């Protein structure tokens, strides 16, 4: 699954289905505290991804799909496990109207694109095509097109290296 993710990240174009969520999806929704003991076993923890927002998510999501949120996605705790389990499920990117600060930072650190855009028009199950290079998101189901806010250069650099650990391994220090 990891290799597949890496391959997907290498391609600027990603295509998959939208899983739609509302505003204020917290890291407790994404990686519930009651599974605290599974934090050292990411594949197991990932079986519970977003369980408290949609208990069927983890069994339905396929590699290449998208998580689509509303406002303030990922608020709450600093647990990096939240973007990690989403990535572990093969999700190509998270789209939201806005992100909580720590979740946003963590996402790029673990190689998961977090894209800011107006998600109101996207519905559950829509086929999306996201072009990380051009910044264009096409909703193939609705034949609509929108743009995401450009990814800051520092985040783009992290993404290009595959995450913060890979960035440090490659450069020995911060090259942002």
């Amino acid at each position, binding site marked *: 699954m990891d290799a597949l993710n890496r391959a997907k990240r290498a391609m600027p174009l990603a295509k998959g289905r939208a899983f739609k969520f509302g505003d204020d999806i*917290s890291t*407790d929704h994404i990686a519930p505290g*009651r599974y*605290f003991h599974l934090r050292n076993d990411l594949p197991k923890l990932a079986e519970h991804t977003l369980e408290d927002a949609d208990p069927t998510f983890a069994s339905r999501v396929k590699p290449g799909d998208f998580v689509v949120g509303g406002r303030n996605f990922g608020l*709450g705790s*600093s647990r990096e496990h939240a973007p990690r389990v989403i990535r572990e499920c093969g999700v190509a990117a998270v789209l939201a109207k806005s992100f909580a600060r720590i979740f946003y930072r963590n996402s790029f*650190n*673990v190689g998961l694109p977090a894209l800011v855009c107006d998600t109101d028009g996207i519905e559950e199950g829509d086929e999306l095509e996201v072009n990380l290079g051009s910044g264009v998101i096409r909703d193939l189901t609705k034949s609509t097109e929108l743009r995401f806010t450009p990814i800051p250069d520092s985040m783009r650099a992290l993404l290009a290296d595959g995450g*913060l650990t890979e960035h440090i*391994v490659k450069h020995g220090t911060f090259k942002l």
Partner: protein
Amino acid sequence: MGQTLAEKIISAHSGGPAAPGELVIADVDAALVQDGTGPLAVRELEKAGKVQAAHPERTVIFLDHASPSPRKELSNAHAILRDFARKTGVIVSEIGEGVCHQRMVEDYIRPGDLLVGADSHTVTAGALGAFATGMGSTDVAFAIALGKVWLRVPESFKIELAGSFTPGVYAKDLMLTIIGRIGADGATYKSLDFTGPGASGLTMSERFTLANMSVEAGAKAGIFAADAKTKEFLTEMGRPGDFSPIAPDTDAVYEKTFTFDLGKLEPTVSFPHTVDNTRPVGEAQGIKIHQAFLGTCTNGRLDDLSIAAGIVEGKKTAPGVRFLICPASRKVYRAALDEGLLGIFVDAGATVLPPGCGPCVGIHQGVLGDGEVCIATQNRNFHGRMGNPEGFIYLASPATVAASALAGEITDPRRA
């Protein structure tokens, strides 16, 4: 041009005037991870071949979230962290020593410091005049190993406080009111400077409560000037030499200013399931509770316990209500013992837990049953937070929690 507290501290750690929006590589004075975030940090450092610490004497690993460990997986996580500490010389704060944020302000943080922590409530130390912010495991891992972190210099909001509290109203009510006004994402990416006569009038413990919950408005940091009270606190903690004054410049530039009059506040409650869902306690009056929880990095200090003990002394917890008390640190626990507070709680029918995060994170020590309601002094009431998505959490001050524990329903402490 004048600087805010965040700009001042980040500038001093990045070799030049740091302007909002700029990306800097900053020197880190202190770092923390806890037992939920630490093992992942260790794993990333192993992956990068950097099992090392730039400042081991000011890098602390806290075994506080699962303290003591309720499961073998968590015992093994603790073992990974103790082993990392042996290899790198960093400090381990063992089970029973307390919540990371309380221990950092008691023993490690100085005004003007730059602290990063793999825990969102790392912002607590801002009350000492430090720039303290929460990040994920990997960011903090490399801050530990390299002594550096990248930061986007935040714009600042001024939180201007005036007046003083009326009886029955506390710092928690103020912070819930602030978050209700700003919104859960109203200060995302911003730093808060708490200023004005109302801010200098607050005790250190009250300042910790405010700084602690800055992140619940989305903020990256929440900072107070370091003044005579800061000095007094550091002296009480046995480290008077760690004090140095710091304050925002009078001509500092703020993106927004919010003003609050402490004298006009009411006891306030956050309704499930978001912290900014705040209402006056009157609107919660009569809601039946199954559990009342007093503790955490937000409100588990001696003054919090003392206020609650004053309300429950000589009385009994309502039948069917579990009243849980969790001192934030061993120091607080010891002082509460000496002052007879724990005896008062035990006589009232409460259960005293060992210092740590207690039931706040939903791991153990007070997980809610289906449909159960808890009133708590903690900082979050998210869906599922206390271990059960079928539970309902209301946030309030220690006084409101204590009064509610006696009544068996959410109660205005001014009526108790």
